């Protein structure tokens, strides 16, 4: 996997010394920076025990962080399911031979990919009630916003994946008498999904992170509960934000690790999309840099 070996020779004795020296210099500089940040935080009294003590109390976890985490995971879970469904439907729609399906599907996908999520959530919560003449709970404002945006990105990923499945696959499927819907559902989509798994997962990580924007409609997710409400009780906003960031990093890393495991597991059976399948095939690792 490592490309490093391609770019430079196996280090000889001189290169080893040079690398070691560079490592030490950079390492020392890094440690110096960390120490400087530490002293600055100390000077600003950000390391005082009372700021961090609440996190040692079970109450903080059971009453603020875990309920917030649950709300985050709930919105993310429902959002993921709906986004995947939305993504598949609109990918297939956009690939339709009928222009009256493919054009509107394409327009929807393009529009929602281009509008900031913050605006979407805000509109669903404040604007949609005027259209449907009824309230939209904060939960659904968040989930709908997440679905429209991430679903559109996933639709493009699925579409690229479906188009990259070797043509022989669908030809063979038609040859044995499958109908269009069967070719799509049994042959193309499963293969596309497996091949695009890395993109799909990185988009799901984006989705999970984006639940953090739920604060705008007072959805009680991890940031609202763990940073705003918790610090209103204990006055430790920076400490609280650091703890919440660590929680996000752990969860998202687990999700990514799980995807990596899944990818390796299915690697033997899945076809590999050729590197030059075309620019529509975004590289998995690029993701979309969602909020």
């Amino acid at each position: 996997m490592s490309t490093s070996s391609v770019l430079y020779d196996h280090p000889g004795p001189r290169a080893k010394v040079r690398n070691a020296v560079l490592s030490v210099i950079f390492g020392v500089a890094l440690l110096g920076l960390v120490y400087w940040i530490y002293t600055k935080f100390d000077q600003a009294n950000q390391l005082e025990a009372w700021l961090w003590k609440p996190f040692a109390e079970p109450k903080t976890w059971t009453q603020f962080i875990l309920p917030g985490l649950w709300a985050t995971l709930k919105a993310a879970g429902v959002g993921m399911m709906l986004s995947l469904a939305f993504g598949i439907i609109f990918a297939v729609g956009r690939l339709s031979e009928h222009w009256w399906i493919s054009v509107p599907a394409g327009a929807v996908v393009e529009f929602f990919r281009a509008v900031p999520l913050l605006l979407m959530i805000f509109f669903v919560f404040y604007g949609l009630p005027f259209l449907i003449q009824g309230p939209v709970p904060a939960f659904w404002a968040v989930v709908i916003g997440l679905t429209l945006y991430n679903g559109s990105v996933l639709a493009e990923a699925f579409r690229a994946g479906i188009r990259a499945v070797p043509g022989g696959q669908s030809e063979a499927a038609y040859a044995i008498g499958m109908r269009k819907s069967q070719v799509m559902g049994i042959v193309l989509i499963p293969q596309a999904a497996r091949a695009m798994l890395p993109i799909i997962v990185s988009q799901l990580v984006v989705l999970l992170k984006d639940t953090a924007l739920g604060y705008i409609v007072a959805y009680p997710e991890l940031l609202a509960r763990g940073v705003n409400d918790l610090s209103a009780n204990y006055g430790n906003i920076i400490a609280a934000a650091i703890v919440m960031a660590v929680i996000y990093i752990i969860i998202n890393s687990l999700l990514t690790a799980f995807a990596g495991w899944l990818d390796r597991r299915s690697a033997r059976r899945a076809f590999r999309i050729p590197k030059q399948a075309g620019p529509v095939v975004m590289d998995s690792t690029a993701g979309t840099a969602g909020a």
Partner: protein
Amino acid sequence: MRMKRMAAVAAVAGLAVAMAACGGDSDEGGSGTGATGIVGKAESQKKLVIGVKADQPGLGLQTGSKYEGFDIEIGKIIAKGLGVDEGNIEWKTTVSANREPFIEQGTVDLVVATYTINDERKQKVNFAGPYFVAGQDLLVKADSTLTGPDQLAGKTVCSVSGSTPAKRIQENYPDAKLQQFDAYSKCLPLLEGGQVDAVTTDDIILAGYAAQSQYAGKFKVVGSTFSDEPYGIGLKKNDTTGCEKVNEILKAAAGDGSYKAAWDNTLGASGTPAPELDTTKLTHCGAA
């Protein structure tokens, strides 16, 4: 804008006078069986959803699964008056920017969340109360020499975006620099660190923060209020009956000591004696 706000204050005052004059016993709103609005809901379902603040110590603070503060106590008094048990109240967190939508959309039945009665909001919702009259003030470091909003030119002030205090600073004190966040709790580290010179909102909210143990002795409320913020209880715009009923409950609470007890158990801890609930100033519930 400024004229509009002045007109609003005048209108509130005018209504209060009218209210006092006619004794406020207009109950042709259609109460009794089949009543709609909160009275009807309380009668038929014995439940209420009340929107409150979650991050304001002393007023509406979510401490884990519970809410506590003066607004919460007022909410309990109203629920009791409507025949709803304390256990059947569902508290719902609101933030400044979503109180009107929550009421209009029926997400909550009532809002008791440091909710200033003003003209703009009256176009969307109905107000009972006021149950308390706060005033915009400044929270500064204990050693600050700031004494009022007139000295804010060139200074940095922190407040919450979309809130009345933020708008007032923008309109009336345009020379002040306004740092806005989504929660007051984010302003306090800035005040402590000296990045802002003052935090501004209603005096009573500021007092709640200043009284928190971690900031004890570090901040002071300047004490020269520059606005009247009559806190109302928000209801659906057409729920005149409910509004009148809430006003009756408040009137009763002022008489039987439960209002004073609500204060003493919450904000009273800061040493401020309970204010008088001026029942002559209760709103006219939108009925002309």
